[in-house]
């Protein structure tokens, strides 16, 4: 659950959301805070937080919180731990 909290926190910080804001159902550009500029901050925050380097295709495909979880799984982040 720790990893999940870290991802939620990365989302809240880069999208400038309140500390308790629900983020698990967020979709790119459905939330007005998650625009293309914020997307770049989000990717950078996730890379820093999990010490990974995300490929271009994955940056393009990271269109929701759940998609971010799935993609990070490919990079070895285990959300069930």
């Amino acid at each position: 659950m720790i990893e999940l909290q870290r991802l939620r926190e990365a989302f809240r910080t880069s999208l400038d959301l309140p500390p308790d804001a629900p983020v698990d159902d967020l979709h790119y550009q459905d939330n007005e805070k998650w625009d293309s500029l914020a997307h770049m901050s989000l990717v950078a925050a996730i890379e820093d937080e999990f010490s990974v380097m995300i490929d271009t295709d994955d940056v393009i495909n990271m269109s929701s919180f759940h998609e971010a979880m799935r993609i990070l799984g490919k990079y070895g982040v285990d959300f069930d731990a």
Partner: protein
Amino acid sequence: MSVFTLAQEAREALLHKELAELTEHHRAHCAEYDRILTASGFTSAATVADLPWLPVRLFKNLKLKSIPDDEVFKVLTSSGTTGEVSRIYLDKAAAATQTRQLGATLQTVLGRKRLPMILVDSRGILKDRRSFSARGAGVLGMATFGRDHAWALDADGEPDVPALRSFLEKHGAEPFLVFGFTYLVWLHLYEVAREHGLDLSNGILIHSGGWKKLVDRAVSPGEFRRRLREDTGLTRMHNFYGMVEQIGTIFLEGPSGGSLYCPDFADVIIRDPHTWAEQPVGEPGLIEVVSTLPTSYPGHVLLTEDLGVLDGIDDGDWPGKRFSVLGRLPRAEARGCSDTYREAS
């Protein structure tokens, strides 16, 4: 995986089928477009070159879209030199496709890893995030392909030499990406790098935005490449040609330089500006661009106001047509051709 794979014959067979279907799709879903085609007497096209084109200017005059209002996800605008604005309507699917195909095109030369990146622009262009300029949107779109971004210009638009130096100290020994508009690269990167002895030899430069300002300074595309190579060490350079009216489709300069190439989902036709006949290799004319990406608006076959010339077919770095952009058609002539359509519509 490359998107520069199809030889001309195979490409035309594929595009003819897909573009003819798109033509029917847009006729059925965009009343204005259907009216224009009916007025022009179009029935069917035996080849890609027979498909009816719209003058790109029409997107400044008419609201052309093939999706209902409630499915509009994004409206892209571009201001031309005269201040008229094109409006391009995307639904979710079209927006996702254009991003993906732009990605696939650039990954042909960049690889799939995001490289450390220099943006030859100023952070200030992204200040008002509710309304980016076309330049801001372009820079942001490209930023996706990089990481650890450094801005080559400070808030006042002056070269930020310390920022460039610290970027190169950290990343200069491995491949890195440089993006900027061609004249900014020349004025604010080339000249600065030369003056300060910056080594850009591991850089891959992606640039666009027209040569007019450079031609005014007597810098040709060949001169641009030669001087960057000699004075900064930069050897990997890819110019590209594209427009908001066919968002996601870019025509990319090949590794050996000099010609632009069409991705597999697009093509160009060069037309005689007086007879509209298709020009052979070596004969300049107006550039028509075709692409299968515009599904939410009838922009799949567009006549631009740019002059270009075919440099060859199936004889370059990548298969298909290769061409060069020569500049703009003088305005008076361009206006003539869209008036025809305005009357028809």
